[in-house]
């Protein structure tokens, strides 16, 4: 059984590898190659608790099915089979056995939900993320300039009806430090997702959702709006740049020098009542 799991997993992994062979590191969104604790935990739950057992059940069921159809196919001159109507013992068995198996899945479910749903640590870097058709804006409420204005990275909202232009907004974070984000939307529902760092959370107008994540390796990670939000949903991208603590601080200082607000790209931010 162990062996079956590993074979199946191997096949799955090989498949995934074929897929990302040659993937551009700036665009790679492979959830099986996590670089953050959250994404790693999610992948491990997936593989150990579900993909593995599912692979076994899959193989067993298909094997039984194929065997049954071949073994019991009608042969020439064969008499009619015995009319078996059922067997209560078997019924109980295949009710209880899967139920036990499934009840075990409650463990990772509940544990995972609680761990991912906890508040961000006190020393986490706080970031306010605002979604808007079709861009992201990031604000660091704790990093303020001389006048007390928080550092804000404006995305460049697209024009409805036109394909997007320019580079996606960049979210700079220090590596190995917990990031606590709050998510707000000014128009429709979006979803904040950086696959290699963490699963997604929706950005719902009229409510503030929050989540935490971190990056465990320096690099830039591609992310993308994951809730259909209209015309340019496909282009509502973002990039998380995870830097060493020093680089991050240098970046922050650099940005704040300009008077408080950083911009990625040109043009006026269409966000109203923002940056206070």
């Amino acid at each position: 059984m162990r062996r079956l799991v590993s074979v199946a997993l191997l096949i799955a992994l090989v498949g995934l590898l074929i897929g990302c062979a040659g993937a551009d590191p700036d665009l790679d969104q492979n959830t099986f190659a996590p670089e953050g604790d959250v994404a790693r935990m999610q992948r491990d739950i997936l593989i150990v608790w579900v993909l593995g057992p599912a692979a076994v059940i899959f193989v067993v069921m298909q094997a039984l099915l194929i065997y049954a159809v071949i073994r019991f196919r009608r042969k020439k001159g064969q008499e009619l089979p015995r009319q078996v109507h059922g067997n209560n013992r078997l019924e109980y068995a295949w009710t209880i056995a899967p139920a036990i198996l499934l009840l075990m899945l409650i463990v990772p479910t509940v544990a995972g939900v609680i761990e991912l749903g906890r508040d961000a640590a006190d020393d986490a870097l706080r970031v306010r993320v605002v979604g808007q058709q079709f861009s992201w804006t990031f604000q660091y409420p704790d990093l303020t300039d001389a006048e007390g204005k928080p550092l804000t990275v404006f995305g460049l909202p697209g024009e409805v009806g036109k394909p997007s232009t320019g580079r996606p907004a960049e979210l700079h974070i220090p590596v190995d430090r917990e990031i606590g984000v709050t998510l707000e939307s000014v128009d429709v529902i979006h979803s904040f997702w950086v696959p290699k760092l963490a699963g997604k959370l929706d950005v719902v107008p009229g409510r503030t959702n929050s989540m935490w994540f971190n990056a465990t390796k320096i690099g830039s990670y591609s992310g993308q709006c994951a809730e259909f939000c209209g015309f340019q949903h496909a282009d509502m991208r973002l990039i998380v740049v995870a830097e060493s603590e020093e680089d991050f601080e240098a970046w922050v200082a650099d940005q704040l020098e300009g008077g408080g607000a950083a911009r990625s790209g040109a043009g006026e931010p269409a966000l109203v009542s923002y940056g206070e």
Partner: protein
Amino acid sequence: MVGALRRLRQEGESYQGVWSWLTTVDHKRIGIMYGVTAFLFFLMGGIEALLLRIQLSSPNNAVLDPDQYNRIFTMHGTTMIFLVVMPLSAAFFNLLIPLMIGARDVAFPRLNAFSFWVFLGGGLFMNASFFTGGNILKGELGAPDAGWFGYAPLSLQSAGTGIDFWAFGLLILGVASMASGFNFIVTIFNMRAPGMTLLRMPLFVWMTLVTSFLIIFAMPIITVALFQLLFDRLYGANFFNFEAGGQPLLWQHMFWLFGHPEVYILILPAMGIVSEVLPTFSRKPLFGYPFVVISGLAIAFMSWGVWAHHMYTTGLGPIANSAFGVSTILIAVPTGIKIFNWLATLWGGAISLKTPLFFAVGFISMFVIGGLTGVIHSIVPSDYQQQDTYFVVAHLHQVLLGGAMFGLFAGIYYWFPKFTGRLLHEGWGQLHFWLMFIGFNITFQPMMILGLLGMPRRIYSYPEGAGWEWWNAVATVGALLIGVSILVFMFNVVLSLRRNDQAGPDPWDGRTLEWAIPSPPPAYNFREIPTVRARDDFWHQKYEEDETGRPVPIVGGGAQEPEEEEHAEGEGHGIHMPSPSFFPLIAAIGLPIIATGLIYDAAIVAVGVAVLVVGIYGWALEPASE
């Protein structure tokens, strides 16, 4: 005016041809119309799917622009669910339920005709939205563009009338579903032949009953949600307007409160079909009949408690997420019971490898994959990664195409001879199966990998270098293969109808009552209403079991041969059948007119109401034998 119409109707009774179809209240004809219409919509939805696949076949492709892409995937999903799988299931309800329970028709034949016409009207109305966006030849589409679940506030913000057509279309289709839901519950409760106790009903009848109950309880919820959406859009109400304090998530709750029972509305009829096909072709009774029935009831019951698994990532909070996670995980138990019993039905049988069996086994095989991916989705923390990716797209097609559609095709191959009198060609049938099976697997299994590789759904294009090119290309090839398989199927139908390979009443050595009567069945179904003595009654008319439990043929048992005077259409036997009526058709026409009026001009509403009222009063006052 009503009087004049009534006179026309009396003349109509003697007519054949188109007129007789427009006024028919015969459940078999209505079933055939349901089936043919749904299949045409399937081609429509399939062509939309192929457009999607062609656009996605390579990165940065520009066959469709984003706007067209959004409209087309919305219509694809909506069409496939509401205009294909639901009505195809309804086609089988119509064709089979009265035959399987030994009745002459459904409880309310005219209501039944009304259901069909409303469905047709709603489907056409919804698709008419394509033409409202300007010049369709220039690619200016007016179809809805907010996805098949139309999340507010995107669906509020969407310009044009696409969403209005979508919402009114779904409301109209809801009327059709509700009407047939009521009708079949009453039929199954009240119209069973003597001796057909609940636990002697064929499994398909059970699943129809369960599905109908799901329909009548789930539809009102989406009805209210759609009205709320329309009030917001058309009259400035605030249900989902977050600026006025409204909660967009209310829409999601209401949609999925309907939507999850809905997915079982889509799969249970197919499961019923499979539960009929497997015993016939393995020549053994269904294994564990009561357990299969109970698990169907359990699925229906549990389907009310899992809806928020579509909303894990909306920020419901740990308690709600855990609770819905657990309930979703557990719904695999009753489904598993069904699968195991089907397997046990095959086990030890004498399986004849005919096309219906291939599709039924294909159903089990693919549905297991679909179900397992469902369980994978149900694990909340890891689903934060899979939600809204191609993993979901893979899951939903595995259960809907690999599940529901495979099951429905099994039914088409199985009962085609009953209703046309002709067998479908085996060779072409098996070719259809294998092409579809292989095509299916190379279309949708790669999507699981795409999902794990982080490809979100509903994106019209993707950049080069994300690592998704190869699998997308593969999927597109698979989709084309499915398309070919459907062409093979259509060819097979045409060929088989012309080949005139007479099926006879009982080509498969069937077990249930419908095989006891001629193919195609006469208008009155049963010359004499049968008295039922056992489950699989017809089988027991043909075979006795010896001491070891092996069946021994009974001499002289078997199906009725068709009678000489087939064209006497029932009247010859003094069997009183419900008379045809076109008031259901008139009443049904009123609904899309009213909807058009509400979108464009109140004056049209008045016309629609007038038509509806004429239809209903004519219907109510008509001297009919209902």
